[in-house]
């Protein structure tokens, strides 16, 4: 089943066109990887999906259907609640871990202490952080290590109870261990969430994703099962990219 349907999407900033006529459907409860050289429009694509692009001074035309309804017909807040996002650089809010995780739930009206505690616990567990930092819930989140911060940001995104999770190069600043942790977590998540991940690391895309989309210069060149793309790409440019001709 397709949770997101993207039809003839054009996006850009001011006069600058970035995405050109992208159409693709995102499968529910699968991991979709977006690959492509730097500057090709991967981040722009992600931010279009939850309308964050508007915050960055960009705009888009074309149709994006979330659960078969135009995302423009949702409230901005509610589309972002449903489609969560995690950025490349982990930036926890400068509060305690606990407060980072209750920030969104409180906004969505949850006030009971017990319920909040529960949310914190569940999401930390989901992100595989609970055992590591269980005792220090009131420690400043900015004191966590890079990988922990990134996982915390993912946990924080989960607190808004999204159905889709967008990840923009979540591992680029991390070391092996943390990358492994996060990859395991993402694989676990795909039971409950739909995940779209941008990565410049082809090996990573190969390891974890079900589908892979290759974007070049704002155009969607190829979108296929990951296996297929990495073994037998149709487009020659995809082949070249995967073989490392481009960066």
């Amino acid at each position, binding site marked *: 089943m397709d949770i997101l349907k993207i039809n003839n999407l054009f996006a850009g900033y001011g006069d600058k066109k970035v995405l050109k006529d992208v159409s693709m459907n995102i499968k529910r409860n699968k991991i979709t990887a977006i690959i492509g050289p730097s500057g090709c429009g991967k981040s722009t694509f992600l931010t279009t999906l*939850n309308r*964050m692009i508007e*915050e*960055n001074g960009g705009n888009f035309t074309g149709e994006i259907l979330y659960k078969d309804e135009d995302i423009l017909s949702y409230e901005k*807040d*509610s*589309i*972002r*609640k*449903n489609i*969560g*996002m*995690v*950025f490349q650089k982990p*930036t926890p*809010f*400068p*509060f305690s871990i606990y407060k980072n995780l209750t*920030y*969104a739930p*409180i*906004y969505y009206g949850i006030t009971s202490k017990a319920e909040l505690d529960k949310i914190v616990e569940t999401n930390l567990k989901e992100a595989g952080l609970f055992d590591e930092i269980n005792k220090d819930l009131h420690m*400043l989140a900015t004191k966590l290590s890079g990988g922990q911060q990134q996982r915390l*940001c993912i946990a*924080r*995104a989960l*607190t*808004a109870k999204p159905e889709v999770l967008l990840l923009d190069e979540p591992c680029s600043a991390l070391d092996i261990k943390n990358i492994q942790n996060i990859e395991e977590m993402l694989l676990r998540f795909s039971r409950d969430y739909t995940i779209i991940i941008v990565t410049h690391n082809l090996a990573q895309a190969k390891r974890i994703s079900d589908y892979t989309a290759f974007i070049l210069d704002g155009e969607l060149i190829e979108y296929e099962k990951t296996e297929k793309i990495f073994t037998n790409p149709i487009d020659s440019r995809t082949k070249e990219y995967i073989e490392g001709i481009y960066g």
Partner: protein
Amino acid sequence: MRKTRERIFNFIIKILSLISLFLLAFIIIFIFRESLSFFMEVPILKFVSGRDWNPLDSPDKLSILPIIAGTIYTSLVGIIIALPIGVGFSVVLSSYTSDNMRRIIRGIVDILAGIPSVVYGFIGLLVLVKFFEIRFSFPTGESILAGGIILSIMMLPYIISTCDESMEKVYKEHSQQSNALGVSKSYMIRNLILPKSKKCILAAVVLALGRGMGETMAVMMVIGNAPLMPRLLDKGQTIPSLIALEMGMAEVGSLHYHALFASGFILMIILIVINIALHFVKLKIEL
């Protein structure tokens, strides 16, 4: 050759820094020296705890408790009015305006800092004091409140320029993350920007308090200059206005003259204590 140049540069920097620090220390010593002969005659405790000020009378009548209280009171009133307004305005500047707009507005607000205090005093006297007299039929509009309001206007540019830059930084750093969670902008302001700006708000308080407690002319013109224990709607007196008012007339070298320096010294001590206290509060906040 390059080494010598490097050495000369270092030397000049160090010397000039030393000069500025010495200059400042010098001023403190200067004030202390001028107050010393007064403190030899009137014990400092008595000076700050007595309630009479009559320079024409005996040394017994030289004490400034009501004036110290008036100084603090007026500045507090100023801060209490200016802080919420200044912080609120900074929030708007940092989160709701474009970069260019912000720069223009900040420039205009900064001009407020350059308007001579005499002018503030005059506007205060002719508009604010008059307004109190007519509107609320006070016998006189000169009051701590009037002084506080005028001070709050003078403090505004300091508060705004201290806060809005830091708030802007927090905003730029976290707004994306917060937006991505689907929460509203005002929620972010309340739960992220304001709490994160505690430190800069504190810095603004330090700066504004210093400015407020040292302000002379403007306060002098609207506060009535009566050395009473301060009450919000009554006249009062502040240390700088006392000094400005009487310094010109005081006989040089007289006890009165030195008493004025002594009150300046006390003001400085109060400020230093406040600064140190806030410095520690700041350290706490950092944790």
